[in-house]
């Protein structure tokens, strides 16, 4: 379990992370989303024990992370651009990780070698971006971490390799209870992968919820009323996040229980009524809109 309590991190006079509290349970995959510069990477690096927070603390299984080799030996952090020593090959990097991580498993390294079509003796700086990303996964998973923190990890990978890596992660979770924290802008990817979601904006955490709950809690309603006056009567009663009118069809984003919302609308016997669950992308955009960060309707 990762406990983040009241963490703030300041760079010069800018608060990159502003008083965030969050609990991530063992065996979960937590997806961290957010606008550019929201502080995702800063939060991840604080969780990994790379940054010392100005206030608050991060604990893993009850123990502080920062400057605690015991905890850090069980965490692997994968930055957005994997770093390897200049001129090093995978085997050489493996030797380095072996000397640092007490949980390193040579057996696991060999097993995973079957999965990645890489030559472990080749120099890493001769490999493509995607191949380096694969190498980073290979090394990270061989460390047998309890917590794997990844900053935009799947970007350079081809679809086959993505699936492959997802499968490996799922197995690690089912078998060993690995905890994964992942940040990404690729919402489709996150949607298939994560079970919990956090959305950040301007250093603050706007949402922290189970993905299925988030999806079943927000609905897109398309409705054509018999009488336009019904519109006002209804929207006053419901928590509407977003409202749009296209001709006689109204589009709402409403929070709340599905059956209850449907009853409300049905009561007015509309011509058309359609309730759809939202995609993660829609949830993200509407939440951001609520936080004052939206698409400007300007044609350039």
């Amino acid at each position, binding site marked *: 379990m990762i406990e983040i309590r009241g963490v703030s991190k300041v760079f010069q006079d800018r608060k990159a992370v502003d008083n965030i509290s969050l609990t991530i349970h063992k065996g979960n*995959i937590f997806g961290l989303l957010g606008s550019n510069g929201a502080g995702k990477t800063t939060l991840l690096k604080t969780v990994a024990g790379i940054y010392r927070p100005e206030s608050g603390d991060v604990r893993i299984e009850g123990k502080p992370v920062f400057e605690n080799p015991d905890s850090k030996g069980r965490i692997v952090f994968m930055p957005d651009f994997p770093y390897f020593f200049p001129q090093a090959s995978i085997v050489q990097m493996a030797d380095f990780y072996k000397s640092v991580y007490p949980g390193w498993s040579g057996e696991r390294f060999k097993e995973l070698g079957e999965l990645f079509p890489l030559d472990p003796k080749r120099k890493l700086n001769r490999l493509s971006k995607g191949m380096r990303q694969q190498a980073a996964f290979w090394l990270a998973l061989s460390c047998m971490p309890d917590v794997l923190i990844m900053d935009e990890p799947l970007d350079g990978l081809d679809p086959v390799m993505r*699936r492959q890596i997802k499968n490996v992660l*799922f197995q690690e979770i*089912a078998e060993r209870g690995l905890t994964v924290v992942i940040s990404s802008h690729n919402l489709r990817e996150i*949607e*298939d992968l994560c079970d919990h979601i956090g959305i950040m904006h301007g250093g603050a955490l706007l949402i922290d919820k189970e993905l*299925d709950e988030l999806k079943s809690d927000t609905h897109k309603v398309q409705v054509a009323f018999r009488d336009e006056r019904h519109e006002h009567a209804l929207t006053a009663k419901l928590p509407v996040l977003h409202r749009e009118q296209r001709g006689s069809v109204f589009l709402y984003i409403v929070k709340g229980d599905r059956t209850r919302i449907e009853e409300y609308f049905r009561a007015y016997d509309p011509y058309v009524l359609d309730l759809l669950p939202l995609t993660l992308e829609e949830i993200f955009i509407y939440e951001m809109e609520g936080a004052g960060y939206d698409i400007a309707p300007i044609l350039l």
Partner: protein
Amino acid sequence: MFELDVRSRKPIYEQLTDKIKEMILYSILQPDEQLPSVRALSAQLTVNPNTIQKAYRELEREGYIYSRAGKGSFVSPAQHGMNAAKREEVREGLLRLMVEAVYLGFTETEIGELFKQASESKGEGDQT
């Protein structure tokens, strides 16, 4: 065994529970048959094991399956409640179509014909 639509708006755990319920109702999964383990299904579908766990828990809560410690999950013997839920679902679906049919000017005889046709085709299905 399952085909999930990851592009669908429907949450994956809901797709899973619906699929398994359907398979139980149509006896594709027999009573007391063992369901694949969370691990196996996760690997097969590339779906988060926590999601599968959640779907199994939900199915167990609703009485479609039962689990034995250390053995796995199994299909519950057929229950009256399951049929009632399915009947209610079909009733709602029929009603919705029926309203459309009435708008389009279907007569009672025409709808009666359809019912007859459906029960005949079921009769044929039973013989083969």
